[in-house]
């Protein structure tokens, strides 16, 4: 599949570009560019490793995303994003980082850090080649990129989609360092058939499957098992008059958690799609929403259910075994000067009773009022509670979080400038109960932020100033953080260059220790060399010096980032 797809891509690109130049009615839009990012970290004293690098030392990225339009009916969009170095820290490629083993070509091309795709489209028929992130529905497939080939057809009101390929090649486990987690080669296919009347309804059946190849990694991953999963779903969305809508989806998954387990007749297979093993599970999921959307008033109720055994290769990080239901509303009133957004919901975990039942209450309220031309006020409140049974511990888990934020804003102006003064205060209280002692610890946070933004009517400079105070109090640790920052934005060189700069100073104090000092300076220079061609540069430096809260006392580091890149914006008029 890899080789075939690559061959098709290699021949398609130049063929279509050559074809394009000959034909009238040709246009091109989109962008292409190259950027370099350099990262530096200097830690003192020498040998101290208390702060880890958080970016690759050097990285070069290419992007090529033009959309060639041939007449009215044919388009050829490319989506090519490549990185010179792999930087995988989570997921199947975890461990491919600079300094580690080299990737094979197949691994490189399917690595999620790279993306090579082209989607030629003629009228209602689209061919999908390369890495595609296809979202068929919420319960079937949508979160993973698959390298392969497929199509998306929309004849009249019918919808037919199919795609097959590889979402990950086999990756051998490597003890390292750096450790490579490894992965089994996984092949995927997905299919959708449905009908849609735009703005009225859509209905579709989805089928998606993924299967690992047991012998594709040697040595195999230590903690990951070869799996196989198949999911079917029926999704429908109906849009009624006056903004009413109804959205429903039901799905069933059959998933083998470990293909090395024995096959069994005790569990029903679903052949030819999937054969049962002792680790095969079969469960259901459903989601539904009903509501009304209007100009000044929205209301909706939504619910999701995931059975404990519901698992799909299209959403590898989905957490099953839960029931969520939420009521949302949005309300504009007082001549649109008052805006209220609120939601209230509950999440019940462990519907299957295979673990301890836990309940989670979630409530949010955001209330904005524009009293007059000068004054406005925003109030928000969030409540979150989580509770579970005790199990074998003396006490159950009980965590409750309450957050209240109040933000008044005052604006005034004269003939030369307008001014904005904004204050924001947030109080957060988070209680956690210890399951062994039953004691509740309280975690309190106060945050205050004052911002001043003057805007000059006759000058191009736009400065801003802000001061922040943050205080967090938990048993045995009190953290104070004071920040002052200022920013400036202005165009220069006949507005061809846009400059932005920012300075920030933080003072951090833990308990009675001597404070830590932090200074951050950053700037960006965006130079529009021509209408199509721009050069963007960003520089940032972060100096942090600890007081005596850690050993060695006075440890410090200097972190710097330099990013620069050229971007070309395709403009069809220039090519005509």
């Amino acid at each position, binding site marked *: 599949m890899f080789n075939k797809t690559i061959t098709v891509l290699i021949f398609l690109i130049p063929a279509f570009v050559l074809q394009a130049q000959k034909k009238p009615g040709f246009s091109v839009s989109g962008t292409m560019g190259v950027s370099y990012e350099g990262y530096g970290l200097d830690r003192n004293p020498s040998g101290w490793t208390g702060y880890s690098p*958080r970016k690759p030392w050097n990285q070069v990225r290419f992007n090529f995303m033009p959309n060639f339009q041939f007449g009215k009916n044919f388009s050829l969009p490319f989506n090519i994003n490549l990185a010179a170095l792999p930087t995988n820290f989570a997921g199947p490629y975890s461990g491919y980082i600079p300094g580690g083993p080299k990737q094979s070509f197949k691994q490189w091309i399917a690595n999620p850090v790279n993306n090579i795709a082209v989607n030629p489209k003629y009228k209602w028929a689209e061919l999908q080649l390369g890495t595609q992130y296809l979202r068929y529905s919420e319960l079937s497939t949508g979160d993973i990129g698959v390298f392969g080939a497929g199509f998306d057809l929309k004849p009249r009101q019918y919808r037919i989609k199919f795609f097959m390929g590889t979402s990950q090649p086999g990756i051998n486990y490597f003890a390292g360092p750096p450790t490579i987690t490894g992965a089994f080669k996984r092949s995927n296919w997905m299919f959708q058939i449905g009908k849609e009347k735009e703005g009225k309804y859509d209905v579709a059946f989805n089928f998606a499957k993924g299967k690992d190849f047991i012998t594709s990694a040697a040595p195999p991953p230590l903690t990951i098992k070869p799996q196989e999963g198949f999911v079917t779903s029926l999704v429908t969305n109906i849009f009624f008059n006056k903004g009413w809508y109804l959205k429903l989806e039901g799905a069933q998954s059959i998933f083998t958690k*470990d293909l090395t387990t024995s096959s069994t007749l005790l569990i029903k297979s679903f052949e030819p799609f999937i054969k049962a093993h002792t680790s095969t599970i079969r469960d259901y999921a459903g989601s539904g929403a009903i509501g009304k959307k209007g100009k000044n008033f929205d209301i909706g109720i939504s619910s999701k259910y995931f059975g404990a055994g519901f698992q799909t290769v299209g959403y590898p*990080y989905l957490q099953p075994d839960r029931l969520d239901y939420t009521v949302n509303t949005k309300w504009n009133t007082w001549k649109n000067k008052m805006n209220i957004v609120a939601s209230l919901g509950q999440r019940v975990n462990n519907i299957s*009773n295979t673990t301890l039942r836990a309940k989670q209450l979630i409530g949010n309220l955001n209330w904005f009022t524009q009293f007059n031309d000068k004054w406005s006020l925003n109030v928000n409140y969030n409540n979150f509670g989580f509770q579970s049974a005790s199990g074998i*511990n003396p006490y159950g888990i009980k965590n409750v979080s309450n957050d209240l934020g109040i933000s008044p804003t005052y604006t005034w102006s004269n003939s030369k400038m307008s001014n904005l003064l904004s204050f*924001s205060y947030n109080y957060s209280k988070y209680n956690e109960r210890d399951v062994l002692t039953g004691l509740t610890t309280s975690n309190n946070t106060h945050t205050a932020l004052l911002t001043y933004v003057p805007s000059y009517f006759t000058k191009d400079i736009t400065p801003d100033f802000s001061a922040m105070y943050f205080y967090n109090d938990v048993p045995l640790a009190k953290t104070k953080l004071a920040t002052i920052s200022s920013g400036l934005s202005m165009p220069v060189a006949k507005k061809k260059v846009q400059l932005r700069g920012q300075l920030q100073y933080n003072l951090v104090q833990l308990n009675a220790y001597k404070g830590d000092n932090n200074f951050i300076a950053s700037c960006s220079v965006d130079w529009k060399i021509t209408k199509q061609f721009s050069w963007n540069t960003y520089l940032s430096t972060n100096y942090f010096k600890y007081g005596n809260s850690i050993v060695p006392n006075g440890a410090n580091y200097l972190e710097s980032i330099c990013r620069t890149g050229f971007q070309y914006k395709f403009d069809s008029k220039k090519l005509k």
Partner: protein
Amino acid sequence: MKQLITILCFVFVIQSLTAQLNVNLSLSGRPPATLTEWGNRKDVLTLIIGPAQSQAADVKIKTSVKTLDGTIIGSTNLNTARIFTPQPGASTILNASDVLPLENIVFTGKYQSALIRTGKLPADNYMLCVQLVRATDYAPVSAEVCKTFYLAAYQLPILTQPANEQELNSKLAQSAITFRWTPVVPSSPTPVTYRLRVFEILEAQHDVQALRSNQPLLDKNILGTTQFIWQPQMSMMPYTIADSAQKNKVSGKKFIWTIQTLDNLGQPLNQTDGNGESLSEPKVFYVTDKKTKE
């Protein structure tokens, strides 16, 4: 005399055949909730069959899973069970895949349906009983030995703050961002470590693509507690159009974060569910600057 010797030999042979074999069952008090995982871990279950007294005899293992009141909820189908032959002078050591072969254990009612749906039994205390029976007529050749165990699947943390798709003020976020999540349920007998990772989603990247391919800006191990205040020490400039790969156009930066739950040995706590990495369902948040909305 010949008759006496013959009778003695016959009695000896009969006694040898019906002799009790010693069995020693060792079972973790809190084994993995997913039953198929028992076979992958040598530390979960060990059955030692003492040496046969004289000659080798074929036996089968009759395994029963019971609730604490003694109700049998699952037992071996002896007709299709595997035959073992304990050898004289040598112990036979077996593990979970031999003692609890799921392809051969028939569960009852709701337990069977729970197993088919989830691969797990309902959370509760159970008893595992093992007895050796003769392969031919299933007559017991050992005493029944039982061990109790507690079964409850781990439910990984759910990320709560920042909420999914929440927009944070860049002035506040540049100084401190508070992350909160629910604890792993039920509480682990050994301390768990929550590995918090935050990834920037670059332009033209999809959310999960960024998680799987970028170096995390924050990678922090947090022991036990379910809150962390991150001081990013970074400018949120340059302000770019985040989420350009998708429909939502937001001026600012977009991040994806997740928690990986690790046991006291630093290994993923729950290797059988979902992705096998014990990664909680990731959430995204934005850091936005209203002034620079493009």
